[in-house]
């Protein structure tokens, strides 16, 4: 890893304040430009659904929308933004319904369908306001360093010695290649998604790398906060409403994404579709949105646009602890275990307080967040070299246009393109594993979990997670023995380029990293995820231990649980 010794990050990452870099996204500021995107989105959507019976599709969309609005519990008191939106939707739906009663012809239905698509596209479409962006990038470090210094003991230090974000945030990886490629083509950044803080962090890291702002889809629920809504909608965020389940909406959303990528606006997707419940690195990606990259790439080639390439850049975040860990893993276990899972008692904290606590703990306790920029790929999952050329598995340059040729010409072939997108998804997931930075806390959790598992190898996972307190403890010697063995495997994998080790693991001294890992895990959660007492190592919370341990699954390190993959990639 290339690291600047002063910051611990890649040398091209600039923590000091610098002006925003301009990009194509600035044009979202222009009304005409936005209108042209909306119009294109509608045109594409109408084309995509042209094979369907317009009346059937209209009825279905109308029905699903009515059900959604009816079910929505957004009130003017708690979520005025959503409530006003629902009001508008209601009016729109009645007008469509009225239209359906009056007009009976095929063309009439098509026209109504078009206004439905237009309604969706307009809702999705994002703004961009340079002034808001400038303010935001000034605010974020200010906010971070306020938290940092307020939380840190160093606030008692003389002026000038105060902490800054750069001591806690490590941005490493292919930063300079990403910078270069962002000037040669269009970037689609695909980060892993563990926590709600990801969106904030990704946006800020993009600025630290001196890149222009990126366009991204933000859940409609985020817009319910007035302040957040104001800034999000002016930061290049477009609206994604997960409650809208109709085919027409999903098609419009995909087409919006295609349209902005085709215009060369750098974008961000979280390809897992949401936060990973299990704590593992994503292995099942949502391919719908990912497919828009290939579609946009194909059209950029067909139209002979300058700098046509779209580059897919994986980005992996590693946190020593995740503030939603308890609720995420419970969700996961509940969904996968059904009756076999018994939820813990006890309510949830108020999310806002929890968020504040997270940052407070993060900064008060010298823990490090790592962000790794992965090697860029083309839309087929081939690596891309410094100059933006695709590299085949044999190391020679290839022309990606050729992969889009069927029977001698570059054209869209839906079945082929779906398969390509599936392969890209697989490749991104593989790269997530390879670009993952293993922290001491992950390895400590993994070691304890596998030591315990070896005591009860035949127990069903859900029974295993309910071990009694006495059963959850092992001797210190046994723990260190397992930790050494696990370290050896991880080190070996790192040497083979299958993952990266954080600086605390690189030292290799088992006592040091174990102590560090236990401390990091203990910082945030009330329950001790790994507890080391006189002579014994145990856990207070098996579910959390499982959550943190899951980060190291998918590598075939042994001790797999049914449903995970072994070293050859086969399901156990």
């Amino acid at each position, binding site marked *: 890893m290339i690291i600047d010794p002063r910051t611990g990050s890649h040398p091209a990452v600039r923590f000091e304040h610098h002006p925003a870099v301009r990009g194509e996204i600035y044009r979202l500021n222009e009304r005409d430009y936005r209108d042209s995107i909306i119009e294109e989105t509608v045109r594409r959507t109408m084309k995509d659904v042209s094979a369907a019976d317009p009346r059937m599709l209209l009825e279905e969309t109308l029905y699903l929308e009515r059900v959604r609005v009816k079910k929505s519990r957004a009130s003017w008191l708690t979520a005025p933004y959503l409530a006003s939106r629902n009001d508008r939707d209601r009016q729109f739906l009645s007008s469509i319904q009225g239209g359906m009663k009056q007009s009976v012809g095929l063309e009439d239905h098509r026209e109504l369908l078009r206004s439905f698509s237009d309604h969706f596209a307009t809702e999705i479409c994002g703004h961009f306001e340079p002034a808001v962006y400038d303010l935001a990038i000034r605010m974020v470090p200010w906010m971070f360093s306020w938290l940092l210094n307020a939380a840190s003991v160093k606030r008692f230090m003389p002026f000038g010695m105060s902490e800054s974000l750069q001591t806690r945030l490590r941005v490493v990886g292919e930063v300079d290649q990403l910078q270069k490629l962002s000037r040669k083509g269009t970037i689609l950044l695909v980060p892993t998604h563990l926590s709600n803080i990801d969106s904030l962090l990704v946006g800020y890291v993009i600025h630290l790398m001196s890149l222009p702002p990126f366009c991204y889809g933000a859940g409609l629920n985020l817009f319910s906060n007035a302040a957040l809504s104001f800034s999000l909608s002016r930061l290049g965020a477009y609206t994604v409403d997960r409650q809208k389940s109709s085919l027409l909406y999903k098609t419009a959303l995909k087409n919006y994404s295609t349209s902005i990528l085709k215009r060369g606006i750098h974008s961000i997707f979280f390809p897992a579709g949401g936060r990973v419940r299990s704590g593992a690195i994503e292995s099942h990606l949502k391919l719908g949105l990912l497919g828009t990259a290939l579609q946009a790439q194909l059209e950029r080639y067909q139209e002979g646009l300058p700098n046509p390439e779209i580059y897919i850049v994986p980005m992996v975040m590693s946190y020593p602890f995740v503030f939603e860990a308890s609720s995420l893993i419970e969700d996961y276990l509940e969904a996968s275990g059904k009756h076999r899972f018994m939820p813990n008692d006890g309510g949830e904290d108020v999310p806002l307080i929890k968020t504040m606590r997270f940052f407070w703990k993060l900064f008060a306790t010298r823990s490090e967040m790592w962000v790794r920029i992965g090697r860029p790929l083309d839309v*087929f999952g*081939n690596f891309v070299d410094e100059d933006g050329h695709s590299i*085949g*598995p*044999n190391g*020679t340059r*290839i*022309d*990606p246009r*050729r*992969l889009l*040729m*069927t*029977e*001698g010409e570059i054209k869209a*072939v839906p*079945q*082929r393109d779906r*398969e*390509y997108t599936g*392969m890209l998804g697989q490749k991104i997931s593989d790269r997530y594993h390879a670009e993952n930075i293993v922290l001491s806390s992950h390895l400590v959790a993994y070691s304890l979990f596998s030591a315990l598992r070896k005591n009860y190898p035949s127990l069903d996972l859900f029974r295993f997670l309910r071990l009694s307190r006495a059963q959850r403890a092992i001797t210190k010697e046994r723990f260190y023995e397992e930790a050494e063995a696990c370290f050896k495997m991880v080190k070996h994998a790192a040497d083979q380029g299958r993952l990266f080790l954080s600086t605390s693991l690189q030292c290799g001294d088992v006592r040091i990293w174990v102590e560090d890992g236990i401390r990091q895990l203990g910082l945030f959660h009330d329950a001790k995820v790994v507890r080391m007492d006189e002579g014994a190592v145990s856990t207070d919370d098996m579910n959390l231990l499982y959550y943190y341990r899951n980060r190291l699954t998918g590598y075939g390190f042994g001790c797999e649980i049914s449903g995970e993959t072994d070293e*050859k990639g*086969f399901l*156990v």
Partner: protein
Amino acid sequence: MKKAFWSDSKVVILGGGSFGTVLANLAAANCSQVTVYVRAEDQARAMNSTRMNPNYLKDLVLDPKIRAVSSFEKAFEFEQDLVIFAFPSHATREQAKLVAPFLKGNEIVLHATKGIEEQSLKRISQVLAEELPILRIGAISGPNLAGEIARGEPAATVVASRFDDVIRAGEAVLATDLFRVYTTHDITGVEWGGTLKNIFAIASGILESKGLGWNIRSFMLSRALAEMVRFGVAMGAEPETFLGLAGMGDLIATCSSNQSRNFRVGFHLAKGETLEDVLRELGQVAEGVRTTRIVREFSKSRGVEMPITETVFRILEGEWSADEGLRHLMTRPLVQDERA
């Protein structure tokens, strides 16, 4: 789809074994040019001058559109539309590494290799995908005894790929009035079908050697199919695939032919010879011996029930005699027939 494109296309076949030669003749009927790559220069020269393959199927006259070459530079001197790998499984990766620099990305790649990569348990199409700058890859498999096709007897094959592009190419290039091409997206099932049948060819040789009749042979084949399905499903294949040409079809052809190496291994083992002696006598690699070991190990570790494979394994290892093996299979607990 447009047949015109493929009738004007150029095809390269890598490997001039018996099946490679047969494929070349089939493709020549549908394309404008077929290039066959063989390793030995004199073989290439002989093929070009005598219009037959001196090593295999000497009665088969090569189509005038076929040219034989002995270097990859020559083989890929024109833009190619379809490349067919017809190397033995153990040579595939190493040859693919050499071929990779010549491919550009728009070619369709098919392979006609039955077997898997031993260490990694990777299927041939996975090996090719790791080495070639090509994404559209498919497999050809089925009951295709080369000699019969060469004589012009009617036959059928399966072309499998996740890509319709590959399937269409396979249909357009290989299908003739005497050679039907069936298609499927389940390449996993097709490739494992072509691999697993070799185990049962050994078993079939054992039965033949014992002079046993059709009842037990059919019994063995149908239970073998059940094992193939169970194993295939564990590998991510669709069970229906094994009912097709690449499963049942290939199983019957391989187990009925007493010419195959695997069959002969079983035949001689049952006579009481040791595996070492049999293999030395054969002087060739019998794919089934390695396949049996790999599949048995995997099925054991995953709890996939494969009693015939287990029995063949023990006989190969010399732990059981053929009679002991047979007794073992006949005295297993009784189960419902269709239980897969």
